[in-house]
């Protein structure tokens, strides 16, 4: 039985209490995308400024639990300044880590999550460094919270799609 300490690592609580890159960007030029977690009502707004295929700036606003807020904060630090390819690789790596299959839980217990029958390989490339984001690894032991942790990333991917189109 996982304990609360697996979930609430110190670094997570730090990002929650002192969120990085909080705020807004004028949009346009920035892309503004909203994300919702229907489970517990988390709402997030991402402002993404991309220049020359690189994340020039990113800002986060919205409300949510410690997991969704700290994940968003960590994400913003992790992607700022990165190329879009790097961001996509990071996102794959993060979502791979959050994939419940990796933890060899019964696929039948995957809950209201990403639930392909034939999930593709989780795409955690060998050379992607998750850094601080590793702290969120404990979340997979609390399946309900996975949606909280991935909300920011899913919303970011949507922003990437929108700004490229």
């Amino acid at each position: 039985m996982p304990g609360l300490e697996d979930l609430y690592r110190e670094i997570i609580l730090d990002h929650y209490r002192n969120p990085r890159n909080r705020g807004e960007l004028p949009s346009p030029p920035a892309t503004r995308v909203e994300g919702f977690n229907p489970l517990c009502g988390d709402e997030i707004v991402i402002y993404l400024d991309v220049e020359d295929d690189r994340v020039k700036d990113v800002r986060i606003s919205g409300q949510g639990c410690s997991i969704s807020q700290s994940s968003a904060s960590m994400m913003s630090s992790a992607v700022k300044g990165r190329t879009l390819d790097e961001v996509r690789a990071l996102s794959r790596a993060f979502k791979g880590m959050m994939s419940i299959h990796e933890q060899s839980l019964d696929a039948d217990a995957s809950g209201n999550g990403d639930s392909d029958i034939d999930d593709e390989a989780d795409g955690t490339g060998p050379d992607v460094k998750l850094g601080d984001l590793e702290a969120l690894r404990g979340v997979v032991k609390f399946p309900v919270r996975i949606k909280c942790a991935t909300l920011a990333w899913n919303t970011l991917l949507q922003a990437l799609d929108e700004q490229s189109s």
Partner: protein
Amino acid sequence: MTATPAPIPTDTLDVERVKKDFPILDREVRGRRLVYLDSANTSQKPRAVLDAMQAYYERSNANVHRGTYLIAEEATAALEGARGKVARFVGARSQREIVFTKNATEALNLVAKAWGRAHLRPGDPVVITELEHHANIVPWHQLVDEIGIELRWIPVDAGGHLDLSALDRLVDGARVVSFAAMSNVLGTITPVERLVQAAHGAGAVAVVDASQYVPHLPTDVTAWGADFVAFTGHKMCGPTGIGVLWGTEAILDATPPFLTGGEMILNVTKTGFTPNELPWKFEAGTPPIAEAVGLGAAVDYLGGLGMEAVRAHEHALTAYALTTLGERFGDDITIHGPADPAERGGVLSFSYRDVHPHDLTQVFDERGVCVRAGHHCAKPLLRELGEAATARASLYLYNDEADVDALADAIDAASDFFSF
């Protein structure tokens, strides 16, 4: 918690015995007893309900209304018998007024889409309230897009009551007034008869979402005088998969069929169809037969205890909860909704300092305390409250003071964990 509350009626429910009727309450979670405080979400089921469904499947399972043999007759009698029980439980005049749906949501969709599509025109005002559940909002949003009805909102005041100061203006010209009898977030009991009268005075159809009311208070739909009343089986000790739309025969007759197919027809040709009589006109396909049997057993169970006793118990327990949480946490806790337990059900939405509700309930879960965190399918109301989410503990007939104390202890534990 400053107003002087009305006197609390004597609690005559034997909760110790009631608890024993619910098998799940024997369960342990993480080595502790289950403290189930999420009945506004779904209720637990007494053994009598589970046994009735099991017996149905083991002895009389057959399709209904079409069988020409004994067990099919038994199945039909079980379904229609359950309809009669539900009709009596809510004070319907006839069981033709009781339509079985899959949940309250389908019932409200039937009203908006079958009655509404047939009768509403562009610009027609439909009045709802700010404390509605999404089930009584989104179908109307669809009609805004589709027909161009005008949606009007009765506001909620700071005390969690409906603000009826502009009621006359809001209902003026309205075609529909649709509202919850009890809020699933604030517990607020709304003035049903007054709203029905205002609706009828304005020539509007009155629709009551009684999903949170029927499980907890004695209900008399005929006395309410509304046109439609919706509620749901799984919140009133019944199974999932069944809901109820009550309607007067006049309004049901004026409502075209909604879902269509077998069972709901008298005749089908290659060029058209003739609908069946009430209530079957609205029950397309194989109905939730075992679920109706379970719901029938649920209303027998509740009726056996007496809904006055259920209400008195919840009234007293809500008062205890408001007092206990207030005393133990003072200004650190904000409990939304009416302060007087006489004006509310046992639904306690609260926030505790700046701990996010989902983090709070995570700690509660460690202690077997089941509390929901989120928007409770009432995002417009949450926005009015200025919250993205609340924690919501909700009480039912099987809860007691020890459960409330367990909640308070869990709040303490969360407070410790997040180091306040």
